């Protein structure tokens, strides 16, 4: 990634900007002409019915699609303040993933100890000093509101934790390297209501520290948790705006129909 002179730097308060994004699975166009800002240290929610492309959109941010053959991006996702296009051919996806982390729908802790799970991202970057690792692991687990529950059993297998705890461990793991953006792909759809509530509270606390982009099929969750909301339908961004405005006075009829439950 090449640094850009300061005068071309970002509009204030914007962490990333999506410009004219098209995405193709082979011949099928899954995302159409998406344009959207991502506000810094705010929570932006992506909502829409099944198959509208919200997860596909989310995965563009950290180049997850690169793992599978036959996928193609068009357009830009500009990351500020250095104004680099995350989707550019010349940009290394591994570097992107070191700056933008992801939490998945189904908690996927590694079959290792709790400590090793939290430390993995640090190890991948070559960090091996015990002192630094311990520090960052504790910080990450505290940020994920898990520290008090696991501090005495850091060497136990991560599989021993409950579903909600495992998901918080995955969040801690993603936080350990201070990412610039944290992507959440339906993080609570596999969890029970109590775990869901704790994750939502966590997201609320985290937004002071990191920019968050969350995909959710649960509208009420979007309304509770996010500052900005984007409504998608069949690969297009139908409406984007401040969450309260979208839910109280949507500008487009399509948005209103979805929000009031007329379909989807």
């Amino acid at each position, binding site marked *: 990634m090449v640094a850009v002179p300061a005068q071309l730097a970002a509009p204030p308060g914007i962490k990333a900007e999506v410009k004219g994004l098209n995405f193709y699975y082979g011949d099928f166009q899954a995302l159409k002409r998406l344009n959207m800002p991502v506000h810094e240290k705010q929570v932006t929610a992506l909502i829409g019915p099944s198959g509208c492309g919200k997860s596909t959109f989310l995965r563009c941010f*950290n180049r*997850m699609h690169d*793992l599978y*053959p036959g996928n193609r991006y068009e357009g830009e996702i500009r990351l500020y303040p250095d104004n680099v296009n995350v989707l550019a051919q010349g940009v290394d996806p*591994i*570097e992107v*993933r*070191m700056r933008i*982390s*992801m939490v*998945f729908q*189904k908690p*996927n*802790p*590694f*079959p290792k100890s709790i400590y090793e799970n939290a430390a*993995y*991202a640090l*190890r*991948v*970057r070559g960090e091996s000093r015990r002192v630094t690792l311990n520090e960052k692991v504790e910080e990450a687990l505290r940020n994920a509101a898990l520290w008090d529950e696991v501090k005495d059993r850091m060497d136990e297998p991560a599989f021993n934790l409950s579903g909600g705890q495992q998901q918080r461990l*995955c969040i801690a*793991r*993603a936080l350990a*390297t201070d990412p610039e953006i944290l992507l959440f792909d339906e993080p609570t759809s596999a969890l029970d209501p109590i775990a869901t509530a704790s994750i939502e509270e966590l997201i609320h606390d985290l937004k002071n520290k990191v920019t968050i982009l969350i995909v959710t099929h649960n509208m009420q969750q979007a309304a509770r948790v996010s500052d900005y909301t984007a409504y998608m339908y069949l690969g297009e961004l139908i409406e984007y705006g401040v969450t309260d405005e979208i839910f109280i006075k949507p500008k487009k009829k399509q948005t209103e129909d979805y929000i009031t439950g007329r379909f989807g």
Partner: protein
Amino acid sequence: MAYAKNLEEIRALIASHKRWDLVFACVGVLALMIGVLTFVALFSDMAIKGVPRLELDFFTHFPSRRAGQAGILSAWVGSCLVMLTTAFFAVPLGVAAGLYLEEYAPKNWVTDIIEINITNLAGVPSIVYGLLALGLFVYQFGFGQSILSAGLTLALLILPVVIVATREAIRAIPQGIREGAYALGATQWQVCKDHIVPYSTAGILTGVIIGMARAIGETAPIITIGALTFIAFLPPSPLKPEPPFVSFDWLTSPFTVMPIQMFNWTSRPEAAFLVNAAAAGFVLVLMTLAMNGLAIYIRYRLRKRINW
């Protein structure tokens, strides 16, 4: 009344069909019993004739013209050394190939050719591997009729087994784990070395053990290389008292292995040698049984340990 008659007929029909069920179940058990009986007969035959011969001197003597003094020392040492060489080549090659095919290989014609070759090689008779070794390793490359040639040959022979076991073990790892690791910024090799290989170790181990069990019992390729059937000396030891303390002379030494020793004794008409053959056979069967049993046990434990 027509209805009642039909019911009776139906019941009779069902009863006769069910009789076939019973007949077939019995036939099935019988067929299984044939296998069981053969195994039991084989094992007990070896045991009855061979176990009396299993005294310490049997393991510590060289073969001899006098049956009572003949032993399997050179044979089992040779087998161990050959197994060592085989594992040394087969394990890294097999695991690396399996890893490449599952994690790296693109779907193109090169990959297809590699996969076709592996499937094909699994079905090539072991004696053809012997011919390959004779023409290529012994003469063309000049490794001679040595442990090195034998180890290389057997490694190639069991390579498909190791590769298939590696691939199946890797395939069992859910995609979510890979994605989680990639999403944290890991490179492909980091994902492989930190996750893929450690989590598939048990499955790979099972395949390696089964492959080695097969290699221990292989006779034909080793005979073809030219392992002699009467060896009354041991290959030079790998460990030496003077520096550099490790020697590789044993790789180029002539040798014999357990199955060949048994073959040699079986070919003799004297009854005493046949007893030796039974004893050697018993040891051989025990070894392969133990290895196969270990592999089956590991596979069973593996099913219970990591539940994705």
